[in-house]
């Protein structure tokens, strides 16, 4: 048994997240897609840890969860503020800075 199916699955999830970030307009959904990318990495890390028979990858997955949680705190704070000022969380509306 190899780790390949798990890694392929993680790559698919990562791609879904990546495409989501590029195509969705709502900042919250974009942010959720980023989280999807992080979780895809977690799956790959754990699968590889299993394959190599050491715990580094699994430990890393815990760190990633903590980092993702911290990122949620900061990210939602920023998105909330901008939503309250503009009454919209669309990333297309925030377009004062350009060129």
């Amino acid at each position: 048994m190899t780790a390949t199916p798990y890694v392929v699955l993680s790559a698919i999830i990562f791609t879904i997240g990546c495409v989501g970030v590029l195509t969705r307009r709502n900042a919250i959904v974009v942010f959720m897609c980023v989280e999807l990318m992080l979780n895809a990495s977690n799956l790959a890390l754990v699968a590889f840890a299993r394959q190599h028979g050491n715990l580094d990858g699994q430990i890393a997955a815990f760190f990633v969860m903590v980092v993702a949680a911290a990122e949620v705190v900061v990210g939602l704070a920023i998105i909330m503020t901008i939503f309250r000022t503009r009454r919209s969380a669309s990333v297309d509306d925030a377009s004062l800075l350009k060129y």
Partner: protein
Amino acid sequence: MNDFVNPTIEYAQLWPILVVFGVACLGVVLEAFLPRGRRHLSQSVLAVLGLAAALGGTVYVGLDLHKFGGGAARGLIAAEGTIVVDGPTVYLWGLILVFSIGGVLLFAERRLEGGVSAFAGQAAALPGTEAERQASTQGLDHTEVYPLLMFAVGGMMLFPAANDLLTMFVALEVLSLPLYLLCGLARRRRLLSQEAALKYFLLGAFSSGFFLYGVALIYGFAGSMQFSDINEAVRNDASNQSLLLIGMGMLAVGLLFKVGAAPFHSWTPDVYQGAPTAVTAFMAAGTKIAAFGAMLRLFYVAFGSDRWSWQPMLWVIAILTMLVGAVLAVVQTDVKRMLAYSSIAHTGFLLTGVLGVQSASELSDGQVTSMQAVLFYLTTYGFAMVGGFAVVTLVRDSGGEATSFARWAGLGRRSPLVAGVFAFFLLSMAGIPLTAGFVGKWAVFTVALAAGAWPVVVVAIGSSIIAVYFYVRLILLMFFTEAEGEVASVTTPSLLTSATIAVGVVATLVLGVVPGPVLDLAGHAGQFIR
């Protein structure tokens, strides 16, 4: 049952980092317990003291490094193999700490806004509402910016010192998250500031997603996160090349985003323009120094034996970055935005240095190594950027900082000193002889030439010439153009900003006229230990 073995932490070598993080935590506690009136003074003093203590510690650690092996690569791998304290690390720590002291001084400036800092009185209050008016009439301040800055500094110090991919990822986030918040805290032009924070955050999180997936793939390839093990696997393991190449590419995306290299540069102008200028100054210098340190370590130590895979990629990116930075800077009409594009061009020049020859043994005597050139360039760049943005905070009109070119017209006639200082920083960024920038450019170009990267150097010289055009255009605007309409004038700052600018000017001049000592110091930093 195995016996429990205590992990060893080399406190004697790591305490500069520990002091910074400790002071950051202390700052959070102070924020909770001190009455509002006392916070500004105590937080800023605490931050400066903490950074100064860490800087002293860095010097002490640096002087002590020779204990751990002689030769070019000396230092030790600390904290159970997660952090490396070697010559380049110590040099970068010193740089980061110097520029973050400058950053704290700019943060603490209160005279420009008439008794309040440049940060929002109450970030949660909506712009244009009663709550915001109250916050500003009561003279409220967000003093949380100091702990946030300290956390960012801690992350920046950890980033180039990381010896495994996990530590590097955590450091990346620790340095980025506080910066996302700091960007959104401007007192004036709140919408721009919040928009900058949103863009920086979304794109930053996106890029760190790439970085993390790269971590996972490289771990899958090597079976370990440690750089030395990865290097070993790169050398010996021919299987799974695709994992290695894709992983390397994804790690590069994350790092190139942080340094603002094309095609991952698009956040830079928006964030530099929208963020409070003090934050921009700190971020422009600190992030770039930390990220270049991390990039050098990752590519030289972990992927050093596979340089034929990553060098062509960096060639292309260096060329693209220089051209994008220089050409787009020409069409800018906003000072902060122009400086942002110029910082992109500088990223390109630094990447040119990264392409150079790494080991001193391949060079004849007196030639500089790649490491030395990049470290020196980062020094000159940092002083010019911090100084330049500090000057931008002074030029104001009724609406706060005036950054559009129209307002800067004729500034040299109204305030020759400030305009002269700014012109001097611009000349250094352009790389005119007798300024620090010239020596830095010369150093990175020679190392790239020595490594045979002449196409990159040709493009670099071309984009330097384009860069001279837009820097000189701004200087001409300041000194030789008649002002029309409303113009900006220079507000007298307190000692804090003046001191930062003065240090920037002196350092830029000294590094340009007698670069020897600092160049030697950068050379003395030696190489990474593996």
